[in-house]
């Protein structure tokens, strides 16, 4: 077993790190403060291929592996949680299902511009009554001639309104399963600008405040029949499989936030003096840092393992769930400790750890709460 990264991966990390430091970090505070979507950063990332890292070159992507993609989200999130989730939602939740389930025509029409970053992607599964319980969907799609007609709404959609292409889930009927009638869910590709597709409230959030989180509203929204993604009725599986990949993205985001908070804190404790000594000279500080660093590295190993599993295994739900569960909880713990070690300054907006702590919280919630991850993991244990 070899834990060293290849030279290619090391160089890719240096690229992501340099980009994050130069292009993303200077805006992180402002993006958080103003809650404005960092459109210019997204355009810069598009130019460099950051929006299609794990997409094959023939579809306009960079042809890299999931680990390279995970490292990108990690490095971006070290300095700005918002930027990390924009890339993650676009790549894992929109490019990936089209790559996996799309027809050749769908790939050419949607995946190529998405991977090149000419278009931005989003994913609409969650509804007011269907969060953790994805089966609680209310949005309906009815086939009418050559068109699907969508009615309903989605909430808390990352990249909402900013994205051009949306993977949307809706009920297309009911089926009998083990003697019970259950909803049949299908996946669709919906373009922004389609009549009947509008945006509702913009959410005001605790963290990742520059990421655009919107309600999507479908009112007799007619989309071409060929925009059905994958087979009719397979939507639930598509959603779950897509979220497995998404969780690796969010785990990477959480990892980045934890690493960013740790690095910032290490610098701070060397400089901050109390009682005539740098606070890094106190054993409490040293031990706290030791625990933080150990957990961060454990999280990194889990995240990288999950990313490698996505490259080599057909099913990687448990790896992804473990990575996300652990990385998210470490992110919350490490950012909280980072704020504590910063003392009063840690509570002040000007210091990055304050934002990182707020950003970290969401990683325990979206794309499957920590409780859902525990269900996935224990479900596999007790199978």
């Amino acid at each position, binding site marked *: 077993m070899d834990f060293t990264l290849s*030279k*290619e991966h090391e*160089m*890719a990390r240096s*690229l992501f790190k340099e*980009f994050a430091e130069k292009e993303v970090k200077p805006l992180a505070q402002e993006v958080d403060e103003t809650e404005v979507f960092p459109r210019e950063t997204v355009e810069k990332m598009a130019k*460099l291929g950051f929006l299609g890292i794990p997409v094959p070159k023939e579809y306009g992507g960079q*042809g*890299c592996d999931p680990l390279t993609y995970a490292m990108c989200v990690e490095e971006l999130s070290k300095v700005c949680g918002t930027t990390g989730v924009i890339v993650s939602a676009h790549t894992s939740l929109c490019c990936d299902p089209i790559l996996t389930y799309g027809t050749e025509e769908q790939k050419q029409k949607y995946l190529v511009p998405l991977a090149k970053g000419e278009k931005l992607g989003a994913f609409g599964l969650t509804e007011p009554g269907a969060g953790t319980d994805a089966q609680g969907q209310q949005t309906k799609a009815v086939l009418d001639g050559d068109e699907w007609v969508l009615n309903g709404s989605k909430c808390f959609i990352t990249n909402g309104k900013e994205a051009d292409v949306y993977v949307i889930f809706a009920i297309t009927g009911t089926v009998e399963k083990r003697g019970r009638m259950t909803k049949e869910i299908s996946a669709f590709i919906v373009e922004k600008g389609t009549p009947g597709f509008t945006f509702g409230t913009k959410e005001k959030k605790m963290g990742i405040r520059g990421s655009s989180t919107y309600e999507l509203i479908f009112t007799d929204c007619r989309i071409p029949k060929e925009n059905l993604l994958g087979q009719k009725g397979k939507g639930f599986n598509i959603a779950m499989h897509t979220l497995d990949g998404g969780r690796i993205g969010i785990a990477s985001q959480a990892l980045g936030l934890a690493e960013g908070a740790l690095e910032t804190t290490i610098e701070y404790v060397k400089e901050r003096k109390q009682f005539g000594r740098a606070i890094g000279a106190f054993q409490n500080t040293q031990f706290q840092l030791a625990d933080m660093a150990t957990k961060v590295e454990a999280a990194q190993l889990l995240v990288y393992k999950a990313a490698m599993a996505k490259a080599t295994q057909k099913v990687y739900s448990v790896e992804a769930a473990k990575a996300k569960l652990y990385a998210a909880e470490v992110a919350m713990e490490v950012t909280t400790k980072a704020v504590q070690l910063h003392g009063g300054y840690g509570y002040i907006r000007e210091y990055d750890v304050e934002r990182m702590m707020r950003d970290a919280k969401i990683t325990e919630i979206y794309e499957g709460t920590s409780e859902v991850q525990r269900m996935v993991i224990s479900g596999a244990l007790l199978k």
Partner: protein
Amino acid sequence: MKIVVCVKQVPDTKGGVKFNPDGTLDRGAMLTIMNPDDKAGLEAALRLKDQYGAEVTVVTMGLPKAEEVLREAMAMGADKGVLVTDRVLGGADTWATSTTLAGAIRNLEYDLIITGRQAIDGDTAQVGPQISEHLNIPVISYAQDIKIEGDSVIVERQYEDRYHVVKAKMPCLITALSELNEPRYMTPGGIFDAYKAEITVWGRADLKDVDDANLGLKGSPTKIAKASDKVRKGAGEKVTLDPDEAVSYIVDKLKVKHVI
């Protein structure tokens, strides 16, 4: 058009500096980057490639590890990489470095050679002009803008208080300022491609028309007599004076330090 770009892998001076017992730099012990002025030179070459079409070959001299900067250059868009590495070339000053690089470049076809103005480790700004002398071609140092016109280059050559617009027939050597441009980033896919590409590795035997007496530590006319880390300073003097005394105190200190 064929462009040769000389790049150097340099220690990131932000990371602290380490020495061997003999006063030479312990490069192995430091984090490394592509020298910023060289990166601007590479970017200039890549822009000429984008604009006029060109083959860009990157040449570096250094330890085998210096291969990394060639991969980086290729991940940015350079076509070929040449690594000049040999034990006998170690410890070279600017003279011996320039004779080595000239010896390597004689094996290549070129219309234009671009180097960075200076490296952040040595800050000498000598190797570019010295290569041009060995190759007997014109040099235009401190380029802030480069254009091609037929068989000539037109360069804005920077001075302290002015710039000259200079025209030279190719082949010609240009030294680039980091102000010249904002170098592009690599792309993730480009990195993986760069690691799949072949890199040419040359040793002493591959250098053309170079005398052994001009290579390596032995071939270096300048010798290090002493080298040391600059001592980090602590508190200096603190005085309590009335305004007039304070003024003459400050003026005296500024005079001693040649500020005025």
